[in-house]
Each structure stands twice: as C-alpha cells, then as structure tokens.
C-alpha cells in the first residue's frame, strides 16, 4: 500500500506516563514528551490501523485475513487504552459532542473524526479531528456512487485553532512526505476536565472561519490538512462542535462495523455511513447534492493524500 516504510523507529518499550504533571513548564516539557512517547506511538499505530481498514481497493474484494488482523490490532490497542483510562476520555468527548449535535439528519457526515489532543502533562490522549481518507472497505453497488461518496466523505478536517495550538499527531503513514511528526505542543490550558471540550470547541471555532486562512495556518504549522467545508452549518447551540461531531459516535471505534459492513447489513455508525451512502438504501443521499460543488477540490486533496 505504501511504497516504502519510513525509517521512523517504533519503540515497543513501554514508558510510564508522567504522574501528576501539573507544572507544564519548559524545562520539564522535554522529559514529559519522552515519557509519553509510548502513548504517542500507540495512538499513531491506532490511526494507521484505522486508515488501513478504510483504504482498500474499490474494485476487488479486500483481503479478509488482513482486515481481521488489523481489526484485532485495533481492538488490542483499544483494550489497552481502556485500561489506561484514555479510552474513556476519548469516547466521552465524542459522545458529549454528539449529544449536542442531534439534529444532523440532513448533514452529510464529514468524516470519521478523531478528536484528540496530546496533553503532555497528563500523558493522555484526547481525540482530535483527524484526516481520514475514506473509501469504504466494502462492496458497493455503484462504483460511481461510491467514488462520489468517498470523495465527499473522506475529507480531512483539521481544527487547529491559532489561539490554542495543539500538537497534531500525524500517523507514521509515510504515504505523504508532507506529513511530519509534530512535537507535542505546549498547552496553556491547565484544566484537565475542560480540556476536551475547550480544545475541540476552540478548534471547531476555526471551522467557522474562512477556509483559506485556516489552510494557511495549518500549512504554516507544517500540516497538509486543510480544512474543507463539506457541510452546511446549521443552527444549534454549538454549531461548530456539532459540525465536528455530527454523526460521530464512539461506534467509530467499534470494529464490529468494519467487519459487519463487509458481509451483512451495516449498522448506521459513522463508518458504515460510507457504505450506506452507496449501497444499502435508506441514507441521507439528499445531502450529497449539496456537496457536489466541493468535489473537485476534494478530488484534488484525495489525490494528494492517497499519494498517487
């Protein structure tokens, strides 16, 4: 899939996350970064695996053995993160946002969104919008529809807010040389509890800004992901947040949907929304028309990301 592996080394050695890192000052930051490298590596492995599960050949049935092995790897990471407690934080953030974004029926799901943030101080991972290149991994009835859906859905979103820059962790994909590993950024926010929503909130505020400026921001931050508007903003208590997390729930992490979608009627998780758009019927196809205008741009980005 990726022509050459990167030379980035993956250290399997476990490193203890820093306990009680309340003082996030410059001097301890380096030490904290090192110590949470295991979490970073684990997170990037998770991201890589999820992308692998989604990217697949459009025309040929995906290799079941490979998919099962990747899915098991994701489950394994998921279990470990559950034990760590990082999993709960992540899913809480997602479900909280989801609860606030109930009326999204006519909105095309943007993408499978991981909202996370590296909090070096806590050594924890909070999900952050994450670019996912999507073509679903499952048979689709119409290849054309599928391509359109994939182009619409597999969009990248970044919520880097200039005000509260957080580090973004690109995975070790190696598929796009522009993706560089960022150092864990400082976070001025000391409050743990509010962090998620604030982070995402502040991040999603960026969504409402002009796309161009955000794109520039992200590029200056050496990130390739621009932000691409593919949904209509809708009135809601927290429109930006809602946009971010519409149709996203913790079932994104539910690997059942991955394997289910291959063979049986998919559940309506965000992942399966990809399939349902093209194959199985009751789906928010009406919203797809509103996004056709962005297809050219999205196609272009797809090409970059897929690394053709």
């Amino acid at each position: 899939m990726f022509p050459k592996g990167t030379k980035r080394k993956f250290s399997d050695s476990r490193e203890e996350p820093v306990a009680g890192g309340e003082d996030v000052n410059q001097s301890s930051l380096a030490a904290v970064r090192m110590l949470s490298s295991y979490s970073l590596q684990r997170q990037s492995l998770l991201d890589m695996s999820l992308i692998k599960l989604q990217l697949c050949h459009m025309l040929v049935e995906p290799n079941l053995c490979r998919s099962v092995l990747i899915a098991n790897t994701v489950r394994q990471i998921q279990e470990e993160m559950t034990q760590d407690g990082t999993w709960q934080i992540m899913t809480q953030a997602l479900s909280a946002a989801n609860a606030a974004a109930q009326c999204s029926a006519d909105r095309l799901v943007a993408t499978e969104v991981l909202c996370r943030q590296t909090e070096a101080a806590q050594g924890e991972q909070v999900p952050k919008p994450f670019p996912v290149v999507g073509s679903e991994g499952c048979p689709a009835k119409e290849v054309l529809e599928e391509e359109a859906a994939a182009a619409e859905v597999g969009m990248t979103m970044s919520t880097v807010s200039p005000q509260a820059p957080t580090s973004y962790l690109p995975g070790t994909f190696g598929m796009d040389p522009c993706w560089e590993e960022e150092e864990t950024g400082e976070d001025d926010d000391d409050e743990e509890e509010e962090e998620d929503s604030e982070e995402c909130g502040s991040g999603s505020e960026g969504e409402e800004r002009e796309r161009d400026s955000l794109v520039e921001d992200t590029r200056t931050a050496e990130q390739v992901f621009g932000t691409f508007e593919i949904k209509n903003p809708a009135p809601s208590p927290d429109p930006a947040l809602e946009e971010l997390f519409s149709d996203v729930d913790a079932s994104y992490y539910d690997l059942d949907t991955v394997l289910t979608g291959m063979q049986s009627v998919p559940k309506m998780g965000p992942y399966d929304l990809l399939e349902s758009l093209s194959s199985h019927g009751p789906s928010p196809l009406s919203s797809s028309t509103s996004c056709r205008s962005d297809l050219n741009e999205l196609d272009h980005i797809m090409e970059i990301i897929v690394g053709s």
Partner: protein
Amino acid sequence: ALELLKTHICKPSRWSCGPPAAEGNVQDEESDTRKINNSFLRDHNYATEADIISTVEFNPSGELLATGDKGGRVVVFQREQETKSEPQRRGEYNVYSTFQSHDPEFDYLKSLEIEEKINKIRWLPQQNAAYFLLSTNDKTVKLWKISERDRRPEGYNLKDEDGRIRDPSTITSLRVPVLQNTDLMVEATARRVFSNAHTYHINSISVNSDLQTYISTDDLRVNLWNLEITDQSFNIVDIKPCNMEDLTEVITAAEFHPQQCNTLAYSSSRGSVRLCDMRKQALCDTHCKFFEEPEDPSTRSFFSEIISSISDIKFSHSGRFLMTRDYLTVKVWDLNMETRPVQTYQVHDYLRGKLCSLYENDCIFDKFECVWNGSDSVIMTGSYNNFFRMFDRNTKKDVTLEASRENSKPRAILKPRKVCVGGKRRKDEVTVDSLDFSKKILHSAWHPQENIIAVAASNNLYIFQDKVT
C-alpha cells in the same frame, strides 16, 4: 552446493508492451547470459504485473513443474530426458505447455472483480498418459488435463485434409483413415470446473491420498469435493461466526495428510493448527488435535498476533511432521506433540525491530510458503531481497541464498549470502536497511526426490540443482 541450472523468464503476456528483446527464447545457455545481463528486464522494471508468478509446484514424479501467474496463465515445464548425445542437458526443464487457466470475472451481485490470479496448483499423480492438475483462483477450481498428441487420423472420406467437406459426387472410392505421425502437440483442456462453492477467497487446495477427493479452503470454510462431481461439495469446516462482528480468526491454509485419507490440518491467523479426522463427524468443527505454541511474554507487542499468523502449512512426506510458516519463523511440529514445535527456525529475525515499518507498508502481511525436501531432512522458505533460506534439520546448519540475475550465469554456483545484523558490516554482507522489500520470494518448490528446487522471484523462475552427486 547449489548450481544454477536454468533461469526461465516468464514471457511477457499479451498485455505487456516491452521491447522485443524480452521475447527471446531462453533456451541457449550461452547467449542467455549475455541477454540476461543486457536486457531491459534486468531490474524487472518492465515486468508486467500479470507475469508475476503466484504459485510453483512439481508433480509427484518431478518430471513436470507448473507455475501459475497473476494473469491466470499456467506454464508447465518438462524435464529433459537423459540423452547420450547431449548429456549436459539432462535435468533441464523446458516449456512443455502454456495455457490460460482462469480469466478475470466480474461478480455482478457485489460489483467486484474476481481476480484471475492463480493462487495454487496441485498435481494429481499420473495414472495414464495424460497429466492432471488442479488450479484455482479466488473462487473457482479447475481440473486440467494435459495430454500429448503426436498422431492424427488422416484419410477421411467425407472431408479432406483441411477439414472441408468433400462433395459426395467426387468420392469414387472408400478408404480407411489411418493414424499418421504429426509434430508433437501438447494440449490442455479443462475437464472439470468446480465453482460457486466459496464466498470468500480460496487460499489452498489439497488432493487427498485416496486420489478421488480434494479440499478447497477459503478464509472461513473448507469444502470437500469429489474430482468427478462438480455440482456439489461438502462443507467440512466452517468457522464463520453467526455474527460477523465476532470474527477474529480466519483459516489461512489447509492440507490433507499424505497417507491418512481421513486426516486434514488447517492453520489460522492466530498461529494455531487444527488436525481433523473426517471419520468422527461430518462437520469437522471440533478438532482432534490443536497445535499452538504459547506466546513468549517477553516479545509481546502489538504486532504479536500478526506475526504469529501462519501463512503456510506442509505435512512432511513421511506424514510424521507438520511444518508451519509464520512471518519470522518456520516451525516443525511432531503430530504427536501439540504443546510446542520440535524445531523452530529463525528466517529473518532481524526484522523484529522493523515490524512497525513493515506494518506500515503492508509487508507484514506477506504470505511466505515453505517446502520440505524429498527426504524431509531439509526445509526451505523465502525471504526479502530475493533471498531464500534452507535449514538442515539434522546438521542444524542453515544457509541464505539469493535468486537474482546478477549471479544467474548458468551452471554458476550459488554463493551463500549473509545479512549483517549489527556492528561492522563485512564485505558482501547486506545490511538490514538496504534490503529490498519489494523483492520477496513467496513461492518455491522442491523436487519430490532429487535436490532440484524451483524459486519464483516476481516474474522470474529460477531452477537450482545440487551439484553434489
């Protein structure tokens, strides 16, 4: 010491568009060398994907060698008979027959292509003048008959030599058709097509020792066929869960026991092998024996399961042992001991530190095959950089060899290779970082009696023979 007997380059398929030099006949050894070294195929740059060899198999006598490729073609080589006039040509394999076994198909229901790539070829033992083999792609198994024709009847009354119907009014006398010698023709005809029995991709076929039945195996099921009956098969193993969400393990390979026609083994993606006895019950979901080695907790990582996934299993010729290949090792199991293998051989343990990169570029999912020699004393398997490894079970010695064009002078002796795992690199050693992971030897075969091996590297087939008599 292995000498290179012959290198055969798969002729470009009809879809390729390389320069004409590629189509030179690879028969003359001397000119071969020059052609090989100068041809554009040197680095496989122009090799079309359809020519990539996907399976290699000797027939039970070793007289024939079959290869299947991604384009659905089967090429059969035949060993030259020993002749007094050209003794140096003894043992050479030359093209005997080429035919298109499978064509690409389209599954309209799922809107998916069915690849024509030949996943496996298995020969039937020869019972008459014709040869029979089974070849399979992802969905369909076919029985092919390869037969020679060197005579044909001539002198028909109602049609002339070209086959045109003769005008009855011109026939003035009757004659009896007579068989006349013609040039040797080798024909391949599909005698049986076994289809519509697999929802998932077929990964193995295995002929039973009773020579009447065979099994075909996909990710979740093993089906038993009678070679004569194409419209029904028996499902004897089914590991599909009621809820596909619960799927965590797939079948990766299956094989019949070489002597016991009721015994078969299948391997899983979790690193286990199950031995089943078909006499116990119709559906062999419960195993008789379960072979799995407990995991070493000190080497546990997120990739542990993936690298434990078994890519190939082979019974020894004696039927006493079973060999399994996972990503980093080859293990030999005694069928009487399920708790752990009797021998474990490290194929390329230096890759253990690179698993993340190999996961990233999907190499960690490569399925390497393994083979026994005729006496079960040596086992062989492939690696990257066009390296392949041999392990002598008695002397415990192992060797790494390379199948490449650089050292492919005919009759050249293969030089052992070595991968430098750290510290100072000696001359001729290859560092781990310089390994070419796109050059992998997944498929190889060993002559059933003699020390002749066939190694497939991309679209090239290398045949090596032991010089030591």
